[in-house]
Every structure is written in structure tokens, then in C-alpha cells.
């Protein structure tokens, strides 16, 4: 059942991504100032959004895991989802940052500027890379779950502080456009691509979650009987 849903989701995501690429590259009008370069927005923004969505889900799962007073084997589901969301979030966030950097070269003239949004995102990605490294380095399943939940919360709390400190430190990013200042067809294409990325995100997340769950089950399974090993 779950497998069928994932298959349907994958097909839908693929269809939407391909049509979204056509909409963004051919159908939507070029930007008045930036021209065709601006079209990268249709993949840059959805990637960043999915990255942030993954990070948010990770925070929710970390809190849910720690709030549960009986942190037993069954509750490691929240931990598996935390692992999946951090990894998928890191993937999309990195993709979004790279796309943004490619967009920055023709518009700002440089690949990288020390702008608050870029800098915060980069710090965030390094922090979650540390989080995922921590998960690899702890062997005991329940300790790993509790400690990574603690680290997940500590990192999430840091996000607004990073944002403020970096904004005071340096600022340059273009003023965010709102749907009111943008041509309606651009908004439509952006939303189309956002839905496509959301479906892709769901496919990645659910696949990664299933893997994390089965790893957890294998870790916590009782050692096999001697007769089974012999076979």
C-alpha cells in the first residue's frame, strides 16, 4: 500500500517537474530587468523552501521525541523521521544555495556575497551536516535518538539568532518580491514548481524514512538464534 502511494507520488512529481520546467523556461515571461536569467528563480526558491521545510520538520520531530515520557523502541519512529527530514532538508537546502549562487553570478557579478540570507543558510547547512555526522558516530540507538534530538533543538533555536547577528553584520540581498509586485503568470509558475518540489520532497522523505525505520528495527532486533546463524 505504502509502496503504491510512493510510486504514484513519484510519477506525479516527475510529471509536475517536467511540465514545471517547460512552464518556467518557455511559458513564463522573462523578467523586465534580469531577462531570462531570472527563470532560475522557479527552481531556486522551491529548493530553499523544501530545505527549510525539512529543517522545520526535524525540529518538530526532535521535540516530539523528547516530550514523549516513554521513549521506548516504538517511539523511535519520531527519530527515524527526524533523521529523514534532516537529510532531505540538507539536500534541498544545498541545492537551493547552489542555484542561488549560480543566479548571483550574472545579477550581482559574484558567486557569493556575505548577505544575511545566504550566510544564514550556509551556517544552517553546516550545522545540520554536523547533526548528521553525530548520528553516524553514535552506535546505541536510543542514545543516538535522545542526543540528536537535543542537538536538533539546539540548532533550531540558533536559527533566529544567526539571522539577526548576520543581518546586523552585513546586508545586500534584493528586496523580496511579494505576489502583488510580480506578474501573475510568474506567480503561477512558481507555485506550480513549488508543488512539484513538494511532491519530490515527500517521495525522498518517505523513502528515507522507510530506510531509517528498517535500520532501526534491525539494530534493535534480538540477536539471531544459533540455529538460524548456522543455516
Amino acid at each position, binding site marked *: 500500500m505504502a509502496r503504491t502511494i510512493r510510486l504514484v507520488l513519484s510519477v506525479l512529481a516527475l510529471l509536475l517537474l517536467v511540465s514545471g520546467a517547460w512552464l518556467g523556461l518557455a511559458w513564463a515571461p522573462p523578467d523586465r530587468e534580469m531577462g531570462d536569467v531570472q527563470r532560475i528563480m522557479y527552481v531556486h526558491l522551491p529548493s530553499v523552501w523544501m530545505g527549510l521545510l525539512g529543517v522545520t520538520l526535524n525540529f518538530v520531530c526532535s521535540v516530539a521525541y523528547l516530550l514523549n515520557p516513554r521513549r521506548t523502541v516504538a517511539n523511535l519512529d519520531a527519530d527515524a523521521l527526524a533523521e529523514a527530514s534532516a537529510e532531505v532538508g540538507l539536500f534541498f537546502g544545498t541545492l537551493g544555495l547552489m542555484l542561488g549562487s549560480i543566479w548571483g553570478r550574472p545579477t550581482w557579478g559574484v558567486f557569493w556575497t556575505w548577505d544575511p540570507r545566504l550566510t544564514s543558510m550556509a*551556517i544552517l547547512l553546516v550545522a545540520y551536516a554536523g*547533526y548528521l555526522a553525530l548520528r553516524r558516530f553514535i552506535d546505541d540507538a536510543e542514545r543516538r535518538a535522545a542526543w540528536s534530538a537535543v542537538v536538533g533543538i*539546539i540548532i533550531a533555536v*540558533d536559527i533566529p*539568532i544567526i539571522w539577526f*547577528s548576520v543581518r546586523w553584520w552585513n546586508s545586500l540581498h534584493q528586496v523580496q518580491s511579494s505576489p502583488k509586485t510580480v506578474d501573475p503568470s510568474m506567480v503561477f509558475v512558481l507555485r506550480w514548481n513549488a508543488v512539484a518540489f513538494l511532491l519530490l520532497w515527500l517521495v525522498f522523505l518517505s523513502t528515507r524514512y522507510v530506510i531509517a525505520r528498517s535500520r532501526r528495527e534491525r539494530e534493535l532486533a534480538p540477536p539471531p538464534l544459533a540455529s538460524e546463524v548456522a543455516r
Partner: protein
Amino acid sequence: MTLSKKPPGLLHATWLLVRKDLLLEWRTRARANALFFFALATLLLFSFALGPDTTILQRAAGGTLWLAILLASVLALGESFRVEQENAALDGLRLAPADARALFLAKAVSNGVLLLLLGAGILPVLGALAGLTLAQRIVINSPVATFALTGSAAMALVLVLGCLAIAAPGTVYAAIASNARARDVLLPLLLFPLLIPALVAAAKATALALEGDPMLQFGSWLGLLASFDLIYWSLGFALFPLVVED
């Protein structure tokens, strides 16, 4: 001592543990000495890397000071939990029974004190290397009132708040990393990105305390540092029991 004696309260337990940590440190002073010379070596490395131009060194002084403290702090924090693992001393403390929150407060305070001494020790050396002078007068414009501080008082305030900012999350992460594989890599990997806001605030505030603050920015950076302290000391206090529980 009788068995019926009640376990000490939170603050009393914290005080006993801080005294134990500092006494252990004082008896040998090996860790403090090693850290001091490590930080001095870092300062020299920075100076050589940036070149002999004193104006560059002066401008980079805030960042240099805090990077030296930050790099040394990873060693200090890691060591503070390594000594507890010998003979399973941490389990002994937990069985004593010491409140896990007292354990956090004590470790964070003693680590903070150690870093503060380190910072106070290397600051004059940096001052001599880069030819630094303290600002005459620093004005803090807070919503409540306006304060005027001398440059040295402002510098001391930044040192205290900055070292506390490293100590609280550092203690939580060191406790986690001490039980993981590859702990020497893991601790800085977790700690450095987290501390970037504190590093930015401390480095900027230090530069302002040294060069003077005509734009009245010192108060904002100090406020950011103080909020970082407040948030991570409370968070560490609340979450640390989950780290050491078994």
C-alpha cells in the same frame, strides 16, 4: 556522614561540583598551562599569517582574540568530560546522587571560568603583539538607561559574556561528543556553526571596546551576546538531564 543525610540542593550541589572541578584544575594547573600556551601559539600563527603590518593586526584583533579562545575552548571542553570518564567518575557523580542540572551548571561554570582566565591571560599578549590600546569611554544606550563605561570595563564585560556563551552550549556538546566515536572531530563540527552569532557579536564588541564606538553600536552587540547566553544557559539547563540519563 550518615546514610540518612539528605542530598544537597541544586545550588549547593552546583557549588560543590564547581569547587571539585576548580580544585582538580588548581592542583595540577596542567590543563590551564597547556591551554594558555596553545592559545599563545594560535595568536602567533594568526600574526604570521596576516603579516607584520600592525594596522592589519589591530583591525583583526577582535576576531583574532576570539578565534584563539574558541580554538582553545574545544580542547578545554573535550578534556573536561574526558577526565570524568576515567574510572566512570561521571556515573559516580550521578549515583551520588547529584542532580544532572547541577552537573551542567557546575561544568559550564568551571569551563567558563577557565576560558575567562585564558582570555584575560592572552589579551595583554595580543595587545603587545598588535600594539592595541583600549577605548577611553564606551557609552551603552539601553532602553532603560544610558551607561558610560571605561574601555577596560567594557572589555571585561565582553570577555565574561563571550566566555559564558562558549561554555553553555559547549558543555552540552562536549558531554554528547565524549560518548561518541571520533569525538575530537565531532565537537568542533557541532560547536563552531552554533557559535557563529556569539563569535560575530564578541568580535565586534571587542573591536569597539578597543577602537572606540562613535556610532553607539557596542550596546547592541553586547545585548545580542547576553541574549545568546540567556537562551543557551536555560536550554542547556533544561536539556542536559536528557543527555546524561541512561
